[in-house]
């Protein structure tokens, strides 16, 4: 009898799952809850991933790609720029509707949106737009942007990512604070419902200018436990799952029948920043010894060859401005020991590192620790919880900072944030320069405003060479973004990457059954 009840329940569940497929997409995201859902404020991967399906920019990176070389029109159907690159005029589409009853999108909305992204009192990304001198509606469907100086990728600032997401003025003004919880955009999917710690529900935007999406509902479920997320996927309760950046995860989830695993760019770059402002790492011989003691091949094997790439330059491979033509330090323990002896540390050296308890990052650091030990470099790791880690590394309390980050794929972003002297931690303009590196300031600044692209690439390459010559940091690996979904789900595009780190679920996505 009990068995029969069990079979009946299982059959009902299976039927329910089958019915749920078709037009409802269930997504499992590794997060306990939603944060702020205002695209000009949201900074976390889970929030940005969701907003990607709800908003447009003036231009966009072709769905499925992550590099600015794939930029194509989005809300703007065309654009022109002045010869000096300081004035840009965009002609908008006239068939774009804001979600809900907020009417047609026009130039006023775009101006309002970009000014909002530039406003440091509202936007988390205002600094990115500091070169914007003015944004004006020069016609009902025309927007003109004037720059005070050239920027490395103006169009890159206008894709639906961070401040480039275009919001609807009337909605923002009408909703006030509520906008942070109930965002209104122009994208293929609209906000419908939020259940705390459970899900955000999106519904198809029937007025979407590229056509009504075939998927009618998306449940973006917050499932913080990796094990539960995997089990829910295995049980068929979710169709698309955010992966764990581990080779073992890829292997395990691939074994679930009917699963497609996707490895996407941009990679999260793991870099060891060496604090050059204090002994013993103020000595370049010690830094070189440190670099020679780390085997990138071993690290790639450790993290998984299918999900990581060896990092060569401080800028990730595939980013605009990346070069592999930089000084490299081959894995050579004897050489490392020689360099240490030459630096006055024949018996080895002890270095203190503060590190987060986040498991993915900590295992990387522990593997580095084991490699360094072979070369008589004793790295003492003090683990602290994540928020404390962020505070303490910004107070110069760690001689080695292991930092993993995915950024907008233009060399300027990495070089400025991690290696320009303005970004040195502890200063008023600090961002994330933990090494106190200041050897490539001129090249970084000059490249930022250089209009000749060849020259710009050359300057970025020089900056990378200088940083590596000084061993300000040791790039280790690049961990790719991992997702999996049912093979019955067709996103309509080949997925190689996504700037917002979530797969492109657009009007083209559909289930094949």
């Amino acid at each position, binding site marked *: 009898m009990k068995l029969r009840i069990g079979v009946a329940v299982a059959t009902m569940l299976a039927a329910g799952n089958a019915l749920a497929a078709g037009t409802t997409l269930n997504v499992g995201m590794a997060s306990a809850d939603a944060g*702020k859902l205002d695209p000009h404020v949201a900074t976390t991967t889970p929030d940005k991933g969701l907003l990607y399906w709800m908003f447009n920019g003036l231009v966009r990176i072709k769905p499925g790609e992550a590099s600015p070389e794939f930029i194509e029109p989005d809300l703007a159907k065309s654009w022109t720029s002045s010869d000096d690159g300081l004035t840009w005029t965009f002609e908008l589409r006239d068939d774009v509707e804001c979600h809900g009853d907020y009417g047609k999108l026009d130039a006023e909305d775009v101006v309002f949106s970009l000014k909002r992204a530039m406003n440091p009192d509202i936007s988390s990304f205002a600094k990115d737009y500091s070169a914007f001198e003015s944004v004006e509606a020069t016609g009902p469907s025309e927007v003109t942007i004037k720059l005070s100086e050239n920027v490395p990728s103006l169009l890159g600032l206008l894709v639906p990512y961070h401040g480039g997401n275009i919001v609807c003025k009337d909605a923002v003004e009408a909703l006030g604070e509520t906008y942070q*919880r109930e965002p209104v955009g122009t994208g293929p999917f609209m906000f419908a419902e939020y259940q705390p710690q459970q899900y955000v529900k999106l519904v198809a935007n029937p007025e979407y200018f590229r056509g009504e999406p075939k998927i009618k509902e998306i449940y973006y479920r917050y499932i*913080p436990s990796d094990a*539960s997320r995997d089990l829910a996927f295995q049980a068929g309760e979710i169709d698309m799952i955010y992966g764990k950046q581990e080779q073992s995860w890829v292997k395990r989830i691939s074994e679930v029948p009917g699963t497609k695993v996707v490895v996407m760019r941009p990679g999260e770059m793991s870099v060891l920043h060496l604090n050059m402002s204090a002994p013993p790492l103020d000595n370049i011989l010690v830094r070189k010894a440190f670099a020679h003691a780390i085997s990138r091949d071993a690290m790639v094997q450790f993290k998984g060859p299918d999900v990581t790439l060896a990092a060569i330059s401080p800028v990730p491979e595939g980013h605009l401005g990346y070069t592999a033509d930089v000084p490299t330090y081959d894995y050579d323990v004897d050489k490392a020991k020689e360099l240490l002896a030459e630096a006055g540390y024949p018996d080895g050296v002890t270095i203190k590192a503060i590190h987060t308890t986040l498991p993915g990052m900590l295992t990387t650091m522990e593997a580095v620790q084991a490699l360094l030990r072979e070369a008589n470099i004793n790295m003492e790791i003090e683990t602290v919880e994540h928020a404390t880690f962020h505070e303490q590394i910004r107070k110069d309390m760690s001689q080695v900072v292991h930092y993993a980050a995915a950024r907008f794929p233009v060399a300027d972003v990495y070089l400025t944030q991690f290696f320009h002297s303005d970004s040195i931690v502890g200063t008023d303009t600090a961002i994330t320069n933990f090494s106190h590196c200041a050897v490539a300031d001129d090249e970084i600044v000059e490249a930022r405003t250089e209009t000749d692209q060849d020259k710009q690439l050359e300057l970025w390459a020089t900056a990378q060479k200088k940083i590596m010559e000084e061993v300000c940091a040791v790039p280790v690996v690049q961990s790719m973004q991992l997702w999996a979904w049912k093979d019955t789900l067709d996103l309509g595009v080949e997925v190689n990457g996504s700037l917002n780190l979530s797969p492109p679920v657009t009007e083209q996505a559909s289930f094949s059954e």
Partner: protein
Amino acid sequence: MTAFILKRLGFAVVTLFAVLTIVFFIVRVLPGDPAMAILGDQASEAALSALRVRLGLDVPLYQQYFEFLGGVLVGDWGVSMVSGRPVIDEILKVLPATLELTIASLILGAVVGIPVGVWSAVRRNKLPDYVARIASLLGLSFPAFVSAVLLLMFFSIQLRWFPVISSSQGGGLGEHLRNLALPAINLGLIMAAYITRVARSAMLEVLNQDYVRTARAKGLAFAIIVRRHCLRNAMIPVVTVVGLYLGILIGNSVLTEIVFNRPGLGKLIVGALNQRDYTMLQGMMVIYTLIVVLVNLLTDLTYGLIDPRIKYS
């Protein structure tokens, strides 16, 4: 009785004030920056400073403290620094889920734990006693997240009886109970293990009392002695443990909430702590303190129901 309750409520106000004061200062002493949690790690120092001003973190600590206390007194718990949503709304949205899970676990724990504990005591040093003792030891020593994953693998993946995501929306009462079943079993069995041990030892003590020996000597059936004369007297330690454990359970249900993906206070407080969401943490502490105080008061009042000799003064 009324005087007793009022006195206890008076103590509760003092306790609440002390807890809030301690929490207010401790969370601010901890390293970590709510501004960075909001703006992300790419934010410049200038942007972080500007946000700290907007969040009111730039004013002297004592001023922040009095503003916070003033708010609590008039029922204004502020808004979450991270999500921007009102603290009280955030808490009230997930509180029912936590209470539901706690009560379901309590019922399950009592229904299983009390009879097994009594049975184990009555059959002392016999096979049922050994089985109950080993089972309760396993229940106590098994980490909640491990048992949760095992339950999911068996009942949700193999048998497909229950969903993995317990917070599934929609459905009627049946669906709701199906969502609740596994998390409640997971926590309830741990509670049952506690109750079994306490009920067993309390029962053993009562069984050795003179009045029990007298009852047996006069020829009363053993089952009647246990039911009429022993059970009630053995329940006071059980109620004490349940009361204490209930407070702990509400706080410790976080692992169960995470693995079964249920909303709840545990997940809320962990998120707030990770992100240094001061206002949310303060609001959570008010709720936790109130719950613990209330549970303790109910525990004390239950003593009088079990043993009429207990007087409240």
